[in-house]
Each structure stands twice: as C-alpha cells, then as structure tokens.
C-alpha cells in the first residue's frame, strides 16, 4: 500500500504547478494511470483526500483516466491494444510481445485552475 505516498507526490506536484502560475486555485487534478504503474485506483482516490487535507489543495478533486495497455507487435508491425494484463500476446496474431508502448503511465497531465 504505497498509494498514500503517491497521493502526497501528486498534491506536491500540483501545488508546485499552481505556485508557478501565480498561486492559482486548483479545482481538479487530472491523472493518467496505466495498469502497469503498480497503483490501485480506488486506494489512490481515498488517499488523495487525506493527502490534500489541510493544504492549499484541500477540496480539490482527483480525476483518473485509465490508460489501456498498448503493446507493439513485431509480427504485425503495429501497436495493439492488450485485453488482459495476464497475457502479453498480440490480440490479432497471438505473437508474444513484451514491448509495452502504453500502460505504465502515472502522470499528472492537466490541472483545472481558477484564474
């Protein structure tokens, strides 16, 4: 369970960004989360409230966008959407592939701010 420390990092990162923009108020943090980031979405949402309480980020929302796993299939020479995290094979031709293009994301990609 390391979601609380991840949530603290998110709050800190958003605070720095808000500060850089002249101390604007942040309404929401948009996060991209891949299944291979090793972070549990529900636990992170719960931790975020705790992490932001008592800070300038208190009351802000964490909005998580799930990023699907995309692999590169060397056989098809194309990017393919993986349907299961338990089976790293091309869904079209069944070639095993470990080339992960997307799915490890743990990234704050936008802030909703008030100006």
């Amino acid at each position, binding site marked *: *369970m*390391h979601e609380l420390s*991840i949530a603290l990092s998110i709050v800190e*990162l958003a605070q720095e960004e808000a500060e850089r923009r002249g101390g604007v108020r942040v309404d929401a943090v948009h996060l991209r989360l891949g299944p291979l980031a090793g972070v549990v979405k529900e636990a992170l949402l719960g931790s975020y409230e705790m992490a932001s309480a008592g800070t300038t980020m208190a009351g802000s929302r964490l909005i998580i966008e799930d990023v699907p796993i995309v692999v590169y299939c060397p056989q098809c020479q194309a990017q393919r959407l993986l349907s299961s995290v*338990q089976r790293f094979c091309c869904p079209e031709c069944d070639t095993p592939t470990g080339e*992960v293009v997307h799915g490890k994301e743990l990234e704050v990609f936008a*802030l*909703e701010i008030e*100006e």
Partner: protein
Amino acid sequence: MSSESDVSRPVAVLVPRLVEVRQNVLKHNDVVARALRERFRQGGVFVVSLVSSPGSGKTTLLEKTLILLRPRYRVAALVGDLATENDALRLARSQAPVKQITTGTLCHLEAAMIENAIQGWDVGPLDFLFIENVGNLVCPSSYDLGENLRLVLISVTEGEDKPLKYPTIFNSADVAVITKMDLATAAEFDSTAADRNIQAVRPGMRILRVSAKTNEGMSEWLQFLASLRDSPQARPGGSGGPPREADS
C-alpha cells in the same frame, strides 16, 4: 449611452480552465535513480536488486551469492526491511559489507533511501552491489532504484500462478528466479506451468532455477551475473580487468 461599455465589461465569474501539465508523478524518484545509475556506471559497479513476496528466499539466496562471489569479486549489499535488522545480520555472516535500510512502515525502497544508505561510500572499488527490497510483490514495482538488473523471485512453495496474480512486478523485472528447488517435488511444483505463466506476463523473460541450500543452479546463476557485469551493454563505461573464472 453606456450600453457599449457594459457589454464589453468582463464577466466577474471564475471559470475553471484546464491547463496541460504532463508531469510524471514519480519524477523525483526517477531523477535520483538516474543519478545513482550514472554514479554506479562511473564506478564500474553492477547493481542487482531483488524483489519477491516475504519468505521467498531473497536473504538466503543473497547470503549464498555473497559467499560464493566474495573470493573473486568485491561485493556489498543493502537490505530493506520494515523493522528488524535480522536480515543484515544474516548477510553479514558472508563477511561482505552489508547495510540495513529500515523503512519503518514503508512497504518498498525508494531511490532516495539508496542514496542515503550509500552516502559517503566510495562505490568505485565494488564489483557488485545487491539491493534486497522489502518483501512485497506490489509496491516495489513503481520505483526505479538505479539498478542494472531487477530480479523477481518466486519459491516453489508459492504456487505457479504467482506471475498471473502479480503481473506488474514481473513486468518491471528483468529476470525471474525460482528458488527452493530442493523442495520442488515435495511441493508438487509444476515447472512447466510456472514457465508458461511467467512467459504470459513477460514474454522472453530469462528464468533461472536455484536452491541456495543444495547449490542446485547456483553455478549457472553466478556465471549469468558475471557475464552481465562484464558485457559492454551492462557496463558501458566499465573499467578494470576481467574477473577470474567463476567455477563454483
């Protein structure tokens, strides 16, 4: 008369605006890990980390590895644990320099903890540095420690479906090591199923089988380590002469 200026006056309502940020949440850890990796590269030390669930045999494998490597290489170990120093004491029996990192309630190691632990160390004279992570198959997957090689261990008593249950950690690791092979028959371990499951979540992953108790597979494991350390890819800026042949 004043209608024009009324219309052009800005409306005093706060409208939330979406601004793009695009920042990796763990960027601080990644920055520290990158600096560590560069420091290790310059010092010519090959860094191996071990992750597994508690009780898979990380400490036992590491103790044996340190003992067997010590006559030929300069080795050291960092060991992460929640509360006790028992593992460090066990590893210290190998006579190699060992440092405990007590994480308190934290379930994983982070790059900054490695940085702190080796503060003041001259890593240059080392050939290998081993980092034993806290026993946990979930959290350590998110944190780069600056290592060259990450091992994920599963013991034969854990069940062959471990990789399917914890695909993320297998995906973050480079090599799988199946431990306690001396118990394989007693535990009715299905080696083929284990291989199939590992390959399903991490195609092409190298799998080693060892028993630190009977030494089964230890020779192959040590040769594998030596070959990685000496390969130009593993040590782009590597210096120093080749080590003596491993024959244990």
